[in-house]
C-alpha cells in the first residue's frame, strides 16, 4: 500500500489520529488509550498485515512522552510509524503489545527501565539493564545523577 492509502485506512480506523509526513515513513499519532485495538487491527487485517515490529522506543518531549512503534509488513512490504502520546509524565502507563508481537517483551522492558513507562498486561515487567534499586529513569530529560560527569 502507498502512503496515501495507508493514510486513508488510518483515518477510517481512527478518526482522531493525526498525521505527520515529514520523515521517510507515514507517522500516525494516536491517543494512548486507543493503542491496543488499533494495533490489533493493523496486525490482523489481511490487506494491512503488519507482522513485523522492528523498532519500539520512546521519546521524552518534557511535557509528554511519545511511544514510537515502527511497523512493517513482510508480505506487503509497507511501513508505518505509530506514535502514542502519553500525557501523564509522573505515572505513565500504556498497554503492552506482547500479545501481538512477542518481540515487544524485551523492548518494553527496556523502555520501562530507561523511561519509566509502565506496560499493562506485560508478562514480566522488570528493569532490564539497570539494577532493581536504581533511582530514576536515565533517558528522561529531567534525569539527574551526581556521578554523571557532564562535558
Amino acid at each position, binding site marked *: 500500500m502507498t502512503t496515501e492509502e495507508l493514510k486513508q485506512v488510518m483515518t477510517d480506523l481512527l478518526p482522531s489520529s493525526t498525521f505527520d509526513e515529514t520523515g*521517510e*515513513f507515514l507517522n500516525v499519532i494516536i491517543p494512548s488509550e486507543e493503542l491496543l485495538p488499533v494495533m490489533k487491527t493493523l496486525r490482523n487485517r489481511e490487506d494491512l498485515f503488519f507482522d513485523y*515490529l522492528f*523498532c519500539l*522506543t520512546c*521519546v521524552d518531549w518534557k511535557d509528554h512522552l511519545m511511544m514510537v512503534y515502527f511497523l512493517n509488513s513482510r508480505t506487503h512490504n509497507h511501513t508505518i510509524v505509530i506514535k502514542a502520546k502519553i500525557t501523564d509524565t509522573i505515572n505513565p502507563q500504556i498497554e503492552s503489545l506482547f500479545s501481538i508481537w512477542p518481540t515487544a517483551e524485551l523492548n518494553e522492558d527496556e523502555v520501562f527501565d530507561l523511561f519509566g513507562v509502565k506496560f499493562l498486561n506485560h508478562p514480566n515487567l522488570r*528493569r532490564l*539493564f539497570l539494577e532493581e534499586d536504581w533511582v530514576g529513569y536515565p533517558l528522561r530529560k529531567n534525569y539527574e545523577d551526581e556521578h554523571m560527569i557532564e562535558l
Partner: protein
Amino acid sequence: MLFEPDHYNEEGEFVVNMGPQHPSTHGVLRLKVWLDGETIKKVEPHLGYIHRSIEKMTESLSYRQFIYVTSRMDYLSAHINNQVCALVVEKALQVEVPARAQAIRVILAELTRISSHLLWFASIGLDLGGVTPFFYAFREREAINSLMDENCGARLTQNFMVPGGIMKDVLPNFQQRVKEVLKQFKDNYHEYDEILTGNVIFQNRLKGVGILTKEDAIAFGCTGPTARASGLNCDIRKLYPYDGYEKLQFDEITSTGGDCWARYEVRMAEMKQSVKIIEQLIDNIPEGEIVGNTKKVIKLPKGEFYQRVETARGELGVYIVSDGGTTPYRCKYRSPNFANLSAIPHIARGHKIGDLISIMATIDLIIPDIDR
C-alpha cells in the same frame, strides 16, 4: 554459578545461572536457566552487565562525534555500525556521497562481514568443544585486521567514516592488499569445511536443534543470517539498498531448515558472497573525491530520521530525533542482537544444556550490541 545461587525452587526445578561470566555467552550475558535434569524448561535473559548508556551519551555528542561511539557497540561490525550513522546524517542533510567513497565503504564493510563471520566460525568450534577451528579462522582474520590497520589506523574499531564520505583516502597498494587477503581466504576456505562442516559429531550437534520457524522469526523480529536460515528474505542490502549495493550482483542466501545447521550453512555461504561483492568492486574503484560537501559543524534539520543497514548479524537501525541543534535530541539504535536474543527462550525450551550452547553459538550474539 556466580550469581544468586537460589537452589531448587518451590516447584522442584533446578535453577542455574549461566553468566555473567561464562565462557559460552561471549561476554556478559546472563541466562537464568530452569532445568529438569539436563532438559531446559525455561530460559530468562538478564541483561545490562555491559549497558554503557550509549544512547544517553549520544544526546550530548555532535553529529561528527556520535559515529565513533557506535564502533564499540557491535565491535565485530564496527565499520558497518559507523556506516549507518554516517548514512543517517547524509540522509537528513541530503548530501551526495562520492562514488569512490561508496566503493571503499562497501569493500571495507564486506571485509568486516567476512572477519565477523570468521570470528563466529572460530567461536562455534570453541563452544562445541573443538579448539582447532579457532586458530584456522583467526589466521585469516588476522590478515583482514592487518589490512584495516594499514588503511584505517586501527585493527578492530576502524572509525573510518565521516558524514559524507570517508575520513582518508586508502593507500596506493590497497587493491593489491585486498586481493592478497581474498586469495588467502579462498585458498584456506576448504580447510574450514574439512575440520568442521564434514564432521559427523558437529553435524549431529546442530541438525534439528533450535528450530526457528519463519513465522516466529518475523514475530520475534529476528533478522540477518538467523532469520534468513528460516527462509525469510530480510537482507537490507537487497530490500533497501544503500551505498550502491543496488548496482552489485550477489545472492541473498536463504535456507528453509531454521535449525542451527541452516544458520551455520547460511553464514558459511555468506562469506563467499561477500568475496564476490568485493571482487566486483576492487578493480573498479572510481577516482575522485572521498568526502561530499558537508559543513564543519553539522546541524540536522528538525525532524525524525531512520536508517538501516545490514550488519553481520542483521538489521541495524538508527532512529534520530533532531530538534534542529548540533546534537541529537534522542537517538535509538535498533540492535539486531537484541531482537535475535528474544527468540532464544522460545527456541531453547525442551532442549538439552548442550543444545543451548549450539543455539547461542549459531545465533551469534554480541552482548555490547544488545545492552548498548
